[in-house]
């Protein structure tokens, strides 16, 4: 009789432990899935709300201190990080190293705000009339403009 109770108790504990382990695993997997859904959703949401444009007069890019000045307007619904490392700048398909760029203001661009990107004139081949500049921000959104120099 006593051994029957003991074996029943052992069976009970083992089944509870097994169920607990399965429940724990289920909880962890669900938690991971849930976190993944939310973080991926946040990334997609941020991408959809991010928008910016290069608003220069394409025929007349100003030159200040040996740099072309490109005006970038935040046309999205979120604040844009506006520092050289947060953007990839390409001219005619070639990446300009961030250390050669200057941004003003440095920090962030609020919706509708206009910032300036200073690109050294040496990165633009002046013997060619038309060029294309592309800016890609940290979440992959891009803006391009074909402009004329000379």
């Amino acid at each position, binding site marked *: 009789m006593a051994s029957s109770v003991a074996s029943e108790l052992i069976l009970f504990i*083992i089944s509870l432990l097994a169920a607990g382990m399965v429940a724990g695993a289920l909880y962890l997997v669900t938690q991971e899935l849930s976190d993944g859904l939310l973080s991926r959703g946040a990334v997609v949401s941020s991408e959809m709300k991010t928008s910016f*444009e290069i608003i220069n007069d394409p025929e007349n890019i100003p030159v200040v201190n040996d740099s072309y000045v490109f*005006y970038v307007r935040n046309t999205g619904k979120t604040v844009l990080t506006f520092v050289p490392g947060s953007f990839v700048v390409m001219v005619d398909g070639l990446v300009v190293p961030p250390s050669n760029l200057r941004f003003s203001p440095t920090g962030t661009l609020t919706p509708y705000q206009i910032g300036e990107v200073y690109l050294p004139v040496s990165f633009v081949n002046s013997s060619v009339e038309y060029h294309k500049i592309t800016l890609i921000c940290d979440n992959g959104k891009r*803006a391009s403009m074909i402009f004329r120099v000379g």
Partner: protein
Amino acid sequence: MGVSGPAAFAVLLIAVTVSFGMLYASGETLYSMMKEAGSDYNEMVVKVRTSHLELVNYSYSTLPNATVYDMTFAILNAGSTLSPNEWGYIYDGMMDSTSVVGPSSEYLLPGETAQVSVINVPKVNGTAHSLVISTEIGCGLKIKWEWLGNATDGAPRVIGSAWYCPGEG
């Protein structure tokens, strides 16, 4: 077996219920996040596609024997509502807030007209000037004009105007 089976089942049932609850909450948060983002995105796209400014008239003023003149453009909103206090003005390629005077109203409703003036433009015969009125959506109205005459006498002429939106990619 006794109570072992039902107890284990109860533990699993609670775990499944909690997991489902967590997934449901995440799903709902995700749905509202995406709905809001989708709504913002659609609003931005629709605004770009339905906005349009047109140059409908222009005039100039100058003093006798002055070597500069003021140019005023009448801009018609031929699209959806815009916010002139968010506009930027690019005069001869440079962002300029001192030589250009634009409307200060909060909104420019469809069909309304606004005046944008460029002051102290030098009277140089045949030299083209340009003004880009950059709206809050990134699209802009570009106007090109020139002075025809000498340093004290003559009149400006608009060469052309274009409404354009920067392309992507």
